[in-house]
């Protein structure tokens, strides 16, 4: 019987980053759900309320880190699923990587632009 079945490259930086971001996201995703569905009901979310939260350094920096880590973890997961699992290589791998990197950049930029609308920290 094999010792383990992971298909990931255990010596890679991306392998480690996937796990570090996972540990962070476990806590922050649970906090995010709890805050915006149980403490504050999603139906009661307003621009003013979001703005008040985003105007504290603690919450703002947490949400920016949340955006960055979730984007990396999710998109890297998709990359692993497509490239490693299906074993594509050559120009197809380059194309998949390029599309995912561009999609990630668009989402991060759009997320940051939105975050800056809400905050009065700057």
């Amino acid at each position, binding site marked *: 019987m*094999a*010792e*383990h*079945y*992971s298909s990931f490259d255990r010596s890679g930086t991306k392998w480690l980053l996937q*796990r570090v971001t*996972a*540990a962070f*996201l*476990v806590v922050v*995703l*649970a906090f995010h*759900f709890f805050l915006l*569905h*149980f403490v504050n*009901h*999603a*139906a009661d*979310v*307003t*621009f*003013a309320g*979001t703005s008040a939260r985003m105007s504290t350094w603690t919450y703002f920096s947490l949400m920016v880190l949340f*955006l960055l880590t*979730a*984007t990396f973890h*999710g*998109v890297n*997961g*998709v990359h692993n*699923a497509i490239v490693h699992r299906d074993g594509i290589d050559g120009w197809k791998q380059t194309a998949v990587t390029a599309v995912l990197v561009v*999609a990630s950049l668009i*989402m991060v930029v*759009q*997320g940051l*632009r*939105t975050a800056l*609308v*809400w905050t009065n920290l700057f």
Partner: protein
Amino acid sequence: MSQSYDRGTVEDFGRWRSFTAGMWAWLFHKFTGWVLIGYLFTHIAVLSTALTGEAAYNDTIVGLESLAIVRLLEVGLLAVAVFHILNGVRLLFIDLGTGLEAQEESFYASLVITGAITIASVPTFVSGVF
């Protein structure tokens, strides 16, 4: 020393009857991962209405939250997120060398806790829409 086997593809659904707990865990983790990254892109798009102005953002949130289907999808999203979190914790422990011998039990525990949290959350998620 690890060995590799030709197990075919998990995506071959004709094999589902022979899946072990670990294979179900792998499949569920991948499915919930796809849902979560898909939702993240949608979530940022919805939040981006704030760029248009305060009224546009508030109207979007109120409009979406007034739809029963959105509330039900939110319950589904919670279930997906809770399972991905719990199974992710299980995977992190296994990666750290703990719990491999109890990996089936911890998968079943993830499912049961996900179900319990999801069911307990339904009243909160659907309040005021039906």
